[in-house]
C-alpha cells in the first residue's frame, strides 16, 4: 500500500477536526472535534510504524498510550464542561468571556493606570471617577 493514502487521510481528518474546534460553539462538540484530531494522529502513527517495521514498535505503543490519554482527557474535559454548565447554565464556549480583554483595549480597563508619570495628587483626584465609571460599566455589562 502506498504510504500516501493513510497520510493524506490523516491530514484530511486532522483538518476536519481543526475546523470543528474553531467553528463549533457547544463545548462537547469541540471535544468531539478534538477526538477526531487525536485519531488522525493515531492513524499516522500506525501507518508509519507499519512502514518502518520498527523492532520496538514505538508507533503502535505510542498509539495505545495516546488512546489511554485521550480517554483521560475526555473524562476530565466532560467534568469541566458539566461544572461550567452547572455554574452558568450554558456550555457555549464563546460566551465564557470572563478573561477577555475589554473591547476598548487595555487602557480602558478599570484600575489600570495609563499614565505612568502622573503625580500622586492627580491619581487621588481621578480615583473616585474611575471607580464610579468602572461600576457603571460593570452594571451595564
Amino acid at each position, binding site marked *: 500500500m502506498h*504510504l500516501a493514502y493513510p497520510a493524506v487521510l490523516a491530514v484530511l481528518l486532522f483538518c476536519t477536526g*481543526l475546523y470543528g474546534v474553531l467553528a*463549533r460553539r457547544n463545548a462537547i462538540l469541540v471535544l468531539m472535534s478534538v477526538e477526531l484530531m487525536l485519531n488522525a494522529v493515531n492513524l499516522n502513527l*500506525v501507518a508509519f510504524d507499519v512502514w518502518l517495521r520498527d523492532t520496538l514498535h514505538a508507533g503502535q505503543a505510542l498509539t495505545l498510550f495516546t*488512546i489511554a490519554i485521550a480517554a*483521560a*482527557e475526555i*473524562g476530565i474535559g466532560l467534568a469541566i464542561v458539566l*461544572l461550567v454548565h452547572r455554574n452558568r447554565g450554558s456550555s457555549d464556549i464563546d460566551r465564557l468571556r470572563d478573561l477577555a480583554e475589554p473591547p476598548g483595549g487595555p487602557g480602558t480597563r478599570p484600575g489600570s493606570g495609563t499614565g505612568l508619570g502622573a503625580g500622586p495628587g492627580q491619581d487621588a483626584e481621578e480615583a473616585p471617577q474611575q471607580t464610579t465609571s468602572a461600576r457603571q460599566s460593570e452594571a451595564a455589562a
Partner: protein
Amino acid sequence: MTLAATTHGFLSPTGVEIAFLLVGLVTLGAALVTVTTKQLVHAALWLVVALGGLAVEYLLLTAEFIAWVQVLIYVGSVVVLLLFGLMLTRAPIGRSPDADSGNRPAALAVAVAAAAALVWVVVDAFRATWIDLGGPAQGSTEVTGAFLFRHWVLPFEALSVLLLAALVGAIVLSRKRGADDGAGQGAPQAKERR
C-alpha cells in the same frame, strides 16, 4: 523504496488500497458530517461511524490489536461519555441553529489552508513510499503484548498512574459542594447524596 513509484503505480491500485480508499471516504464523510451537522446527538452518532471506519483502517494496516482497542475505547466508552455529557448539559433534541459560532468563515479558511498545505507536503514527500503489508502481522495481540511488556513497561505503569489521577480529578470536579464546606464533612455529605 525509491523504486516504489516505478513498480507500484497509483493508477493500478491493489485490493487493499481500494478497500482503504473506500473506507477512508466513508470515514472522512462521517467526520465532515460530525463537524457540520446542526443536531448535536447526530454529531455523536456520526462520530461512531468515523471512529469505526478508522478501526477498519487499522485492520487494513495489519494493526489488529489497536483496531479492537479503538472499538472498545472510542466507540464503546468515549462516545457513550459524550452522549451522557450531551444529555446532562440539556442539549436540545433536533436542530439547534446556534451550533456554530460566529467565526465559522475564518475557521473554514484556516482548515482549508492547512489541508491544502499539508496534503501538498505529504503527497510530495511520500509519493514513492511503499508499505509492505506482507509477512507476519505486525500488530497482532501476541506481538503487541511482547513489545508492550518487554520494552514499554515503565511508560505503561506511568500511564496507569495518570489514569488514576484523571479519575480522581474527574470525581473531585464533578462532585457537588455543600453549602458549608467544612473539612471532614464533605465525604459523608457526598455519601448521603448518593
